[in-house]
Structure formats: structure tokens, C-alpha cells
């Protein structure tokens, strides 16, 4: 129970989000209307992705400090789940954008940032795939992980200079905060963020255990 609290939290919160996210009241807004419910599914993906990728980088640093292979497995698996969240985030966003902005993809600050972030991590996976030696794979992919993220941060600062965002709450578009006087959306949105992040850590946890078991299995044969 002590170690699994976040799994219970994830199940309870996400159950609540799925039911109340579709049935609950939302403020009427022009253009957005009912699509505003995407807030509960699309936005938490980015919070999830950022927290998973931060843990991945932290594990990379730990690997370089200690050379313990466990940290490398962790770093790779956290990056994988981060990518999964990123892809789902882009998909939910893209479908939503088709019906509110009228296009699957636009030249938007946040879209570009997400795309570049994913490109970096796809490259990371390919880099991992091109080594045979385990130690070398671990060390070099850790180096790239740290190097790439340090350059992703200036990018996220640089990008907004090119153009304003179309997203609700940016660039003069109405957000939810002033409209949501009754807190009807907030009481679903915050649990949604926590629930999805916990789900991300749960998935990663299972994958890491699977990887470790596979390794033990290989060593015994």
C-alpha cells in the first residue's frame, strides 16, 4: 500500500476525470464550446511528458555519476513513456485543432516546441539502437540526453519570439481562468493532471520491472 499509493491515486482520479469530464458543467465560450473538455486530456499529457522527461534526465546524470546500469534502464524507460505522452498529446491536440482552428497542424509556438522535443527523443532512441556494447550505449545516450535537454530549454524560451500562440489563454485568446468563476473546470483539471502523471509513472514502473526481469532471464540462460 505504501509503495503503491500513486497507482490508487491514478485509478481514482482518472475514473473521476473520465466520468465528470464528460458529464460536468463547462462555461460557454465562443468557438470552443464543448471541445473545451479536451483540457482534461490534452493539457495533462504535456505535464506528464515534462515530468517523465525530467526524471529521465535526472537518471542520466545519476548514471554518469555512478555507472550503475539500473539508472540507464530507468532513464531509457522514462524517456519512452515521455515520448508516448508526447505523441498522445500531439494527437489529441491535432484532432482538437481540426475542429476549432480548422487545420490539423499550424505554425504555432507550442506545436513547434513539441515537435522539436519529440524529434530529439526519437533521435535518442535511434542513438540507443546503434550500439552493441551495453556500457557504451548507456554512457553515450546519457550524454546526449543531458546535452539535448540543455539546448531544448533555450529553444522553449526562443520560440515565442517568432510568433504568438493560438492556444486558449495566449496571445489575446480567452482562457479559462476568467470564465471559470464557479471553479467547475478547475476541480476536474487539477485531478486530471495528477492522475495522468501518476499513470505515466505507473506505466514506466511496469516497463522497468519487465526490463530487469528480462535481464535476469538472459543472464541465467
Amino acid at each position: 500500500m505504501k509503495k503503491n499509493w500513486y497507482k490508487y491515486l491514478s485509478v481514482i482520479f482518472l475514473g473521476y476525470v473520465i466520468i465528470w469530464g464528460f458529464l460536468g458543467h463547462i462555461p460557454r465560450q465562443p468557438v470552443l464550446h464543448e471541445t473545451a473538455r479536451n483540457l482534461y486530456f490534452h493539457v495533462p499529457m504535456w505535464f506528464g511528458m515534462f515530468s517523465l522527461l525530467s526524471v529521465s534526465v535526472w537518471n542520466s546524470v545519476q548514471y554518469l555519476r555512478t555507472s550503475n546500469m539500473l539508472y540507464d534502464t530507468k532513464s531509457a524507460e522514462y524517456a519512452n513513456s515521455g515520448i508516448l505522452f508526447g505523441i498522445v498529446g500531439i494527437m489529441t491536440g491535432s484532432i482538437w485543432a481540426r475542429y476549432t482552428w480548422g487545420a490539423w497542424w499550424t505554425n504555432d509556438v507550442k506545436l513547434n516546441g513539441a515537435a522539436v522535443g519529440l524529434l530529439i527523443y526519437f533521435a535518442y532512441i535511434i542513438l540507443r539502437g546503434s550500439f552493441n556494447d551495453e556500457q557504451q550505449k548507456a554512457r553515450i545516450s546519457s550524454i546526449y540526453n543531458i546535452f539535448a535537454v540543455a539546448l531544448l530549454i533555450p529553444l522553449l524560451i526562443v520560440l515565442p519570439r517568432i510568433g504568438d500562440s493560438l492556444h486558449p489563454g495566449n496571445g489575446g485568446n480567452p482562457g479559462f481562468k476568467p470564465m471559470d468563476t464557479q471553479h467547475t473546470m478547475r476541480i476536474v483539471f487539477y485531478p486530471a493532471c495528477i492522475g495522468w502523471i501518476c499513470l505515466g509513472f505507473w506505466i514506466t514502473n511496469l516497463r522497468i520491472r519487465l526490463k530487469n526481469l528480462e535481464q535476469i532471464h538472459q543472464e541465467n540462460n
Partner: protein
Amino acid sequence: MLKEIKALIEKEIRLELRQKYALSGMILYVFSTIYVCYLSFRLKANEMDKITWNTLFWIILLFTAMNAIAKSFTQERFGRLLYQYTLASPVGIILSKIAYNTLLMLVLALIGFGVYAIIMGNPVEDIGYYLLSIVLGAVGFASTLTMVAGIASKAENSATLMAILSFPIIIPILIMLLKISKNALDGLDRSNSLDEILTLLAIDAIVLVLSVILFPFLWRS
């Protein structure tokens, strides 16, 4: 330390001059890429859009940089590298490689700019500032790509890896450069680009610090 770096840079230059065909090859690469672009766009002088002119120039420079720097860790034989590494410290090696690649990029970029301006026409209004943006670009490209070349050289399919690893992380530098050079192209007041130049210098500083921290780990393998 400084003495060591100086000796290593001298070694790189001597090595380059000893195989003159490699250097001439890179210059020819710039020249023929520009000519391919010239023929593909079927240009008469000064017919091209200013923005296209600028973007095309930077993309040509980016590819030149990739080709020139990709070989900085692969041109020497394994045994000689091993010998070198017993003599010099990793920090000295990475700093000398970055300095040498910056020098190389400066030569290539300035030759490239000359040829490009003659063939494609020269709409630049503030030449001094445009040259400054080229210098900043050479420093930025060289420092980022040197580290990536080091990472890619350890893997098997290093040519592909070099491209996919470096493109996403070079984007912030490229965006800032495009902005500065566009301002110079239009002859805007110089104070307009100050912000971008500072950001670029900050990114360069991050890259340098990270290279110094991370290269010793890369070097060990």
C-alpha cells in the same frame, strides 16, 4: 592548459594542411551546393525574395558545417587517437577541437558568403552586421556540432546519426541567426538585434560549459 590547447590546435591545422584535398573538397562542396541552388532556382540576378535568399544561405552553411565537422573525430586512426589521449587531457582536446572547427567554419562561411553573393546577387544593406552574424553562426555551429560529432563517431552509422542528432538541437541557434541576419539584410538599426545576439552568446556559453563537463565521459569509452 592554454599551452596544451595551442599545441593541439597547431596539430589539427598541420593535419589539415597535410591532406590538402580534404580542405579543397570542403570548399568545392560549398561551391557546388551554391551552384546547384542557383541552377535549381533558375535565377537572374536579384530576382530572389530576400527571405528566401537569407534562408537558403543559412541552410547551405548548415549542411557545409555538418559535413566539415562530422569528420573531426573520425579522420584519425584508432591507435593514434589512443596515443593522443594518453598525452592530453579531455578538456584540452574538446576545447582545441571546438576552436579549430570554429576557425574552419569561419574560413568556409566567409568563402561561401563571397561566392554566394557573387552568384546569387547581394541584397545585404548592412554588410558589417551580416558578417558579424556569420561569425556568430560559425562559432555556434562549430561548438554544438563538435560535441555531436563526438557522440556520433562512437556509433556505427555515424553519418545518419550526425544529422538526426544535431538538427533538432541546432534549431534555436539557427532561428536566432536567421533573425539577426534578416535585420542586417534589411539594414535595420543595429540595436534591434542586440537581444538576439545576447541570446545566441548565452546558448554558446551553455554549449561550451556542457561540452567541457560531458566530454570527459565520452572520451573514456
